[in-house]
């Protein structure tokens, strides 16, 4: 079990993480979601005791990380975002080194190392120097090193970043398999990953938690707010810019092309975009081919939460327009 209470961190007076609190129960996978620079890694570094928090505390299996780091970290397996292993070591040597470092009794060492190596599917490269391995293998070696001492809590910072699709599937299967023995906190900016893996989601932006819940509840909450797809005849390059001006529109993005213009719109809660969009299109003399309300996806939830703040900030800076969100490619959140 992992508990975080009022965690804050500032660097030279600039807050990076502000008042983050959450709890991950045993056997649960919590997805930690946020755009790059939102404070995910900083939070994880505080959880793992690598960075001292400015305020708040972290309990790893009921032990305070700041007060009793050596006891608390016994129950921690951590896969850092910038995974740096010792390139000159062989895989088995590295995992054995981690076992010794984490105080695995010598009598159990060999068995534990074998187990971790098998669990993470790196037994075929067990005697290869780490420097010669591909990124996907290295990631799994890092994971084997992180769980060789059977920690109660696993903290994984972007475990699938930089892997090819087949490796991603493998690592995801592995993580799903690990949930029965460990409490897992997983950070990512890949949305489908969260949907597939996590029981609960925490969305963080600018150092603050902006939403939390199961993927289902988050989607439900957001479906209160409308999302529509507008299809116009012909190429209308200015369509998204024009439609964004409609009161109530939070986000407008052009998707696809080819003889028609497709714009995806997300509106503020409680508004109905269909009528104003229709009137605007009519006023401009465009031909409306389609006006479809959409079920909000997790992506909408995420982009809305993150761009809501961006819009608020733009309001305080007159003359500065909020960056239009780029068309969202398959499943990735704009960075």
């Amino acid at each position, binding site marked *: 079990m992992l508990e975080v209470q009022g965690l804050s961190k500032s660097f030279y007076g600039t807050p990076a993480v502000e008042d983050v609190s959450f709890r991950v129960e045993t056997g649960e996978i919590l997805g930690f979601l946020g755009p790059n620079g939102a404070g995910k890694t900083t939070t994880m*570094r505080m959880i*793992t*005791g*690598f*960075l001292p928090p400015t305020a708040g505390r972290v309990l790893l299996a009921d032990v305070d990380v700041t007060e009793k*780091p*050596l*006891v608390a*970290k*016994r129950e*921690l397996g*951590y896969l*850092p975002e*910038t*995974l*740096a*292993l*010792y390139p*000159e*070591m062989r895989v088995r040597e590295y995992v054995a*080194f*981690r076992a*010794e*470092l*984490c*105080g695995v009794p010598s009598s159990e060492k060999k068995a534990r190392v074998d187990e971790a190596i098998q669990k993470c599917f790196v037994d075929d490269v067990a005697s290869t120097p780490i420097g010669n391995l591909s990124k996907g293998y290295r990631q799994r070696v*890092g994971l084997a*090193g*992180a769980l060789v001492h059977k920690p109660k809590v696993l903290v994984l910072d972007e475990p699938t970043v930089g892997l090819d699709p087949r490796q991603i599937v493998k690592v995801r299967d592995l993580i799903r398999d690990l949930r029965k023995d460990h409490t897992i906190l997983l950070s990512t900016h890949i949305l489908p990953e969260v949907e597939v893996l996590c029981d609960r989601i925490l969305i963080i932006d600018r150092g603050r938690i902006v939403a939390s819940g199961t993927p289902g509840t988050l989607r439900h909450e957001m479906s209160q707010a409308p999302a529509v797809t507008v299809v116009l005849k012909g190429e209308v390059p200015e369509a998204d810019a024009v439609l964004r001006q409609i009161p109530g529109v939070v986000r407008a993005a052009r998707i696809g092309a080819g003889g028609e213009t497709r714009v995806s719109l997300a509106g503020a809660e409680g508004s109905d975009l269909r009528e104003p969009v229709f009137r605007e299109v009519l006023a401009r003399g465009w031909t409306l081919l389609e006006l479809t309300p959409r079920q909000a996806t997790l992506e909408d939830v995420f982009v809305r939460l993150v761009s809501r703040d961006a819009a608020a900030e733009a309001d305080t800076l007159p003359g500065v327009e909020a960056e239009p969100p780029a068309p969202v490619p398959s499943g990735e959140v704009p960075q």
Partner: protein
Amino acid sequence: MSALKAFRAIVKREFFSYFVSPLAYVVLTAFLLIQGYTFYLIVLALNQPETPRTALMSLFFTSVFYWIFMMLISSVIAMRLLSEERKTGSIEALLTAPVSEATVVAGKFAAGWCFFLFLWLPTVLYPVLLSRFGTLDWGPIAAGYLGIALVGALFISAGTFASALTKNQIVAAIVGFVFILGVFLVGVFRDFVTDPGLRDAVSYLNLLEHMDDFARGIVDTRRILYVASTVVFFLFLSTRALEANKGR
């Protein structure tokens, strides 16, 4: 108990990692060349009937050559100890294991020191060779090696501190060399002190005298204490520096 285990694991990993870097072999080769040449000079000197026979070992340590070289290789041995882990980022995985910064620093230092001692291993052959051509007093020789080990600990600990201050190995080597030079020069101040009491005290910091004593077989616990406390001091500073810098 588990700290000891982690310490052992760190020393082992660090020590063996020296042997996969080309630097280690460059240092080893240069060291053997220079020591071989020194040995040759000693044999030449011993062939002169007027050479005093009492302090064979001191011949090893009186040359300026020896000191500059010791300082140089110590800073090179120590430069990567902490800076490399911080540069690659592997320090993050290391320090999130249940080990304290102090254990990491101590382990790194011990590995560097072991490598320093390893360099000296082949030179044991020289007195063994000499003993075939005459009788040797093994006491002073053993004491001489103890003196070397102490000087090595002193230099490597200063270098470890330099390595904790920067991510850049070259900078660590240069800063380390300056620190080591500082440690060496502190003792040289003896010659500028006129007050006899103070002079006596400062002379314990003088490493030339230190080596001279040990080479004669004088094992002075005050000198051992000086080295031990300075080593602890440098390792303490390294630990604090690592704690402050690790996340950057």
